[in-house]
């Protein structure tokens, strides 16, 4: 009895220590992210004072603003000031849109979220069965086909595939809608509540607009989904191969369990644990991929906002956007770690 309580106490301590370690990692990562973005902002060749006062301001005004912006203080003090601002959600004002960065990001974020979500759904729905199929037919032509499709996904530049997709499916065949999220004719036929157009239109029953939004999203989402599919199918294949080689599969076969049940229930359920982390990581990767895809498809999301700001040297917006994407990326990494330790009994028990 006593040993049991002791064990439980020790396990609690272990869990606590791991939680504290994890929190420390997250805090350190966020701090690093903030520091790097801050330093990038300092080495930019754009003079922040000139951006405020213009190049015709007299020297006295220039000096005053220079002092107000805190540029005469030591670097660590400036970093501290910046941290305090960021903590209150103040990333400064965009030089292009003249609005606070936070407001801008809130406006463009749903577009990226919608694109990435549809993409990951496509990527998972295609990638997992493809990986399972390849593992079951290991070494046969099905395996080779999935492998080659994956390699093509790894090797083709996404912006180029996007352009080709637009050329073929939009310009030549006319089966999908072109760049942008929705045609202007449908833009006011529903009220954007969440900013996720598919969701909003479906909820309000504006099915014409839904169809239009769908025809806009399907091409970029399929392309992005293809890229995550390449990764997901490869990982599914290797996880499934590892599971199919286990002894419990042999036992199941000996018991006479039907083959489809062995593959889709016994093996896949165990392979699903590491797969969850893979899917979470590819979801984060899609955020990166969206920068180039959104540029090609004129998709008014975070990626396009970031590139637009970059090309116009709007540093506040660039740093704000980088910080937001970085934070989501770190968050998803953390989430995949947590999911992994929650789902896998071996990890949960603590090694």
């Amino acid at each position, binding site marked *: 009895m006593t040993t049991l309580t002791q064990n439980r106490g020790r396990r609690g301590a272990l869990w606590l220590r791991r939680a504290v370690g994890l929190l420390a990692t997250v805090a350190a990562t966020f701090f690093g992210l903030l520091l790097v973005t801050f330093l990038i902002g300092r080495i930019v060749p754009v003079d922040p004072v000139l951006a405020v006062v213009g190049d015709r301001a007299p020297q006295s005004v220039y000096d005053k603003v220079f002092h107000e912006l805190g540029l005469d203080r030591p670097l660590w003090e400036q970093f501290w000031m910046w941290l305090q601002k960021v903590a209150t959600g103040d990333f400064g004002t965009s030089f292009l849109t003249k609005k606070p960065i936070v407001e801008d990001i809130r406006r463009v974020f749903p577009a990226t979220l919608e694109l990435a979500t549809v993409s990951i759904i496509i990527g998972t729905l295609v990638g997992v069965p493809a990986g399972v199929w390849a593992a079951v037919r290991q070494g046969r032509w099905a395996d080779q086909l999935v492998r080659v499709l994956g390699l093509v996904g790894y*090797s083709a*530049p996404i912006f180029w595939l996007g352009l080709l997709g*637009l050329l073929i499916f939009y*310009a030549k065949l006319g089966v999908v809608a072109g760049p942008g999220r929705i045609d202007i004719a449908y833009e006011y036929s529903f009220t954007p509540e969440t900013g996720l157009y598919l969701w909003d239109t479906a909820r309000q029953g504006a099915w014409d607009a839904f169809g239009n939004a769908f025809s806009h999203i399907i091409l970029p989402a399929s392309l992005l989904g293809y890229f995550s599919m390449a990764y997901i199918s490869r990982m599914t294949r290797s996880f499934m191969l590892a599971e199919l080689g286990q002894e419990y599969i042999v036992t199941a076969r000996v018991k006479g369990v039907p083959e489809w049940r062995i593959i889709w229930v016994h093996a896949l359920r165990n392979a699903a644990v590491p797969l969850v982390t893979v899917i979470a990581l590819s979801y984060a990767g899609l955020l990166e991929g969206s920068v180039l895809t959104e540029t090609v498809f004129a998709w008014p999301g975070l990626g396009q906002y970031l590139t637009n700001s*970059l*090309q116009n040297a709007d540093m506040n917006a660039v740093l704000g956007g980088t910080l937001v994407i970085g934070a989501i990326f770190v968050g998803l990494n953390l989430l995949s770690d947590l999911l992994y330790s929650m789902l896998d009994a071996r990890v949960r028990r603590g090694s």
Partner: protein
Amino acid sequence: MTTRAWLLSEQPASRRQARLGQAYRTWLAFRANWLAMVGLAIVVALVVVAALADVLAPYNPILGQDLNTTRLLPPLSPGHLLGTDDLARDILSRLIHGTRLTLMVVVLVALIATPIGLLVGTTAGYFGGWIDTVLMRLTDIVLAFPRLILALAFVAALGPGIENAVIAIAITSWPPYARLARAETLTVRNSDFIAATRLQGASSARIIWKHIVPLCMSSVIIRVTLDMAGIILTAAGLGFLGLGAQPPQPEWGAMIAGGRRFLIDQWWVATMPGIAIFIVSLGFNLLGDGLRDVLDPKGRK
């Protein structure tokens, strides 16, 4: 005795014979994988084309021909196999000269990122303790950043250009090598031969560089080869966004961006450089896969 028999001898007479024999066996295993051989052929072709670009390219890559008659010619036009772009430049010649930029980016990133990764990883693994904690936490932090976004922000700060693109990509790509080098170091750091070297009075720096780094090299090189396709794609992406190589340099990503305006009527201007990027990164992917199958004992079935 033939060379082949000498190489495959079960009882090598010298250390050199054993080492060459091992290399030959690796090569035989590699050669049996035809996809990997295709990859190798593509990469070799890339290097050859880059070296002989001046001889191979039929036209000047930067200066165009007659703007009145040779602008936007379709592929298979007489004298212009892949057509010409909006400034009447021969696309084939530009692609051929572009191999140099691609190769330069890949080589420079590998040359910058590999030593950083090796240094961080082996130091962390060798010393352990708080040095390990600090260095690996740093690695995790950099690894947690989205690579393309960070490269974008760096290029924005440093100014567009191919050198800055190389620096930005290198800064964001060393962490996987550091992790790998650390893992390799942990497996050898308690070996007898390391202890023997230490007893002979070798300094830590000497042990790391002379005895540990060489052992980490092969796995790190495979990893770098596998990453090269990603490096090419990132560089092309930066070029496409106008943040990498600047016009009139014949960089493939920038060429796609340039051809975007004529996509619907003159599709070849944007399509041809994309095919080039695709072939080259496919080559690196195939080569890396093949190398991993041959050299990585864990992946061997």
